[in-house]
């Protein structure tokens, strides 16, 4: 069993990275690996409420299934909220706290150190 850190760093629909990253994370738990997810940079936009987009899988809806796949460690980069110009006032960031917990830069470095493997999407 390996401890995998999966970094989701892409906006939900600009590329297929968000969806492919999630597929990758879910498959890893099915094969006995321990998965931690962190949303960084543009990946934070995956945590915001989205309208249904035709022709692609609904990322919002799929992310809500994470607890059912034994992925309980789920974080977002707290300092990236500010770097991305996202504030609690302009976005309903309360949805963020439902899916992921805030983590500071030192905490992220610790996650990387503790992981056997790091994969970025």
């Amino acid at each position: 069993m390996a401890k995998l850190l999966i970094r989701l760093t892409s906006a939900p629909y600009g590329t297929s990275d968000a969806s492919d990253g999630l597929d990758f994370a879910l498959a890893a738990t099915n094969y006995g690996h321990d998965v931690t997810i962190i949303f960084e940079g543009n990946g934070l936009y995956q945590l915001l409420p989205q309208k249904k987009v035709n022709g692609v899988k609904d990322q919002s809806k799929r992310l809500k299934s994470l607890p059912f796949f034994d992925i309980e460690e789920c974080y977002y980069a707290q300092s990236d909220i500010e770097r991305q110009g996202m504030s609690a006032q302009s976005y309903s960031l309360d949805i963020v706290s439902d899916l992921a917990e805030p983590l500071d830069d030192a905490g992220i470095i610790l996650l990387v150190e503790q992981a056997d493997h790091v994969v970025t999407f």
Partner: protein
Amino acid sequence: MSNYTVLVTSAPYDDQGASTALAFCHQLLADGHHIDQIFFYQRGIYNAMPAMAPPNDETNYFTAWKTLNKNHNVTLRVCMTAGEKRGINANDIVPFEQTGLGEFFADLHNSKNLVQF
């Protein structure tokens, strides 16, 4: 000496990742390391397209990976969910194996290192 899994998520030509991955794999083998598997995922599956026809002064990645497999017996695996979606023809990608994330993660248990390009 160590065991490696290499994950290729970069398309040939569009990204530098495929080129760097190839160089990295050659060096691993030259230094006596073992490559458990090279797994092609996302747009990385385009590396397994035999119909690619680059100009003479550019690398043909399909041939380059095929040569690596032939000379060193390295396992090349394509995620077929990613491949079929993009129109890859399962019949003519040999020596790339048609697999999925399941095989990738099952064998990842044996690898000490995972490197993504």
